[in-house]
């Protein structure tokens, strides 16, 4: 369980705090979505929850980051890696740059942690299978597509065997095929019981995978609750967040006074089609 307790964070040299009094809990096996406009503090939230802020980035943190109830303030960054792993949106810069094969790339994390060789191999194998990238094992990571690189990056994170996974806009720079690859992988991980905190602008993606969603606005937590109800919340639009397609359709239908039964029927049947 990962908990932020009244956390505020200000980057080094900044005049204002990027996060203010944020409290949240990510429970084991839960998928938590984070929405908000640009610069609302979503990336900052990810950096704080992973421990990179303030350990690597500097800056000032007030409040506490707790893992299973224990304060993490005294822990160094490498000690955080096996509890919380974080992925970013640029597929290329997440790769170590020193691995000649995907296999080596995925093994990079556990190798750093000095884990016994057999265990490193075991974790690498299981992460590669979890992301279904066995066919890429011998390829050069630099020559993969963006979507494939993101899968490799996420596999590399899983190899750390973290309790919680944080993904900051993993599909932002991917084309539709890459987005599909990554979102399917996330869905499988979620179904397998992983704890994931995921930031995305693609609300349709979040609707398909999150248990709960929270919204940030100017560094503060403004909405929080079950994914279905938060993503349908009308105030979300004022926060600069897009509506998921079905939500938008329902709203437009209501405004046009079309009976909701027709819409629900249509959405239900469409859902069956697109899931096929």
């Amino acid at each position, binding site marked *: 369980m990962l908990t932020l307790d009244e956390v505020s964070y200000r980057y080094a040299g900044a005049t204002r705090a990027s996060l203010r009094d944020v409290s949240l809990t990510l429970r084991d096996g839960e998928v938590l979505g984070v929405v908000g406009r640009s610069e609302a503090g979503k990336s900052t939230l990810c950096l704080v929850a992973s421990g990179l802020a303030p350990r690597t980035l500097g800056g000032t943190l007030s409040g506490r980051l707790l893992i299973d109830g224990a304060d993490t303030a005294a822990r160094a960054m490498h000690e955080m890696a096996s509890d919380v792993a974080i992925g970013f949106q640029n597929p290329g810069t997440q790769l170590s740059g020193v691995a000649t094969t995907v296999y080596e790339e995925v093994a990079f994390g556990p190798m750093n942690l000095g884990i016994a060789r057999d265990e490193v191999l075991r974790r690498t194998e299981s992460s590669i299978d979890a992301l279904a990238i066995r066919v890429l094992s011998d390829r050069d990571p630099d020559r993969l*597509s963006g979507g494939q690189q993101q899968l490799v990056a996420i596999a590399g994170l899983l190899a750390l065997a973290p309790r919680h996974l944080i993904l900051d806009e993993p599909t932002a720079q991917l084309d539709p095929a890459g987005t599909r690859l990554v979102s399917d992988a996330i869905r499988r991980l979620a179904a397998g019981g992983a704890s994931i905190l995921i930031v995305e602008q693609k609300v349709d993606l979040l609707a398909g995978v999150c248990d709960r969603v929270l919204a940030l606005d100017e560094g503060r937590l403004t909405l929080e609750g079950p994914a279905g109800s938060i993503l349908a919340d009308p105030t979300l639009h004022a926060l600069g967040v897009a509506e998921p397609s079905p939500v938008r359709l329902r709203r437009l239908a209501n405004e046009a006074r079309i009976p909701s039964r027709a819409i629900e029927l249509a959405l239900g049947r469409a859902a069956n089609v697109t899931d096929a």
Partner: protein
Amino acid sequence: MPDLAVESLIHVYREGGVRAVDGVDLRIGAGERVAIVGQNGSGKSTLVRHLNGLLRPTSGRVLLDGVDAAMRTVAQLARSVGLVFQDPDRQIFAGSVRAEVEYGPRNLGIRGEELRSAVDWALAAVGLEFDAKTNPYDLGASRRKLLALASVLAMRTPVLILDEPTTGQDERGVQRVRSVIGEAHAQGRSVIAISHDMRFVAEGFERVVVMRDGRVTLDGPPEQVFGRDAWDQLAATFLEPPLPAVIGDRLGLGSTPTDEMLIRALASLG
């Protein structure tokens, strides 16, 4: 306002011998709004880079108002065709927003009052009018992308090409891009956009061109390209039609690629 013509265009990259564009014929009339979609590697970026001369054809030609683009340098073509790249950080170099936006028109020889008004207009169009003195790296990634857009808008080119304008943008940024495109269209400019966002494409463009393996596989209005008959071809290139198109088809309402069209079709049922 000029029209663009691409004739039997083939482009083979010297390095690796990749046939990125494999025989494309396209005509884009003055004032058209065209979206080009397809996976990475389908040839979309290679194609549009021929329109301002950054790439030259291996064979075939590009005509701007009937004149072969090969006769003009990139700097000359930049007067007529503006291209906004996907990554603003691979372009921004000035210390202030204003200086960055001035760069393009300055290169075209625009000075004085004309320069000032072009820059003011471009900044207002993207919502950066109060940030003229801000350092571009103090803007967030989303607004830096709008800055890159403004820097090309200020050049007032009759043709505007946008490479992935909504990638990395939040909803507000996407709205801005929509309104910029709408205004450019209203002024009679041609707008060509490469995009992955099918909803953005269906709602904002009269014509959609689908590319795959260097060729055009579909070319027509959204109703046609996202209509039932085209779904197999879309699936072959890993694209999905927008949700309203799927719903409209299931309900037997014909082709309804946008939410608005679907609602109208449902409403007319009574």
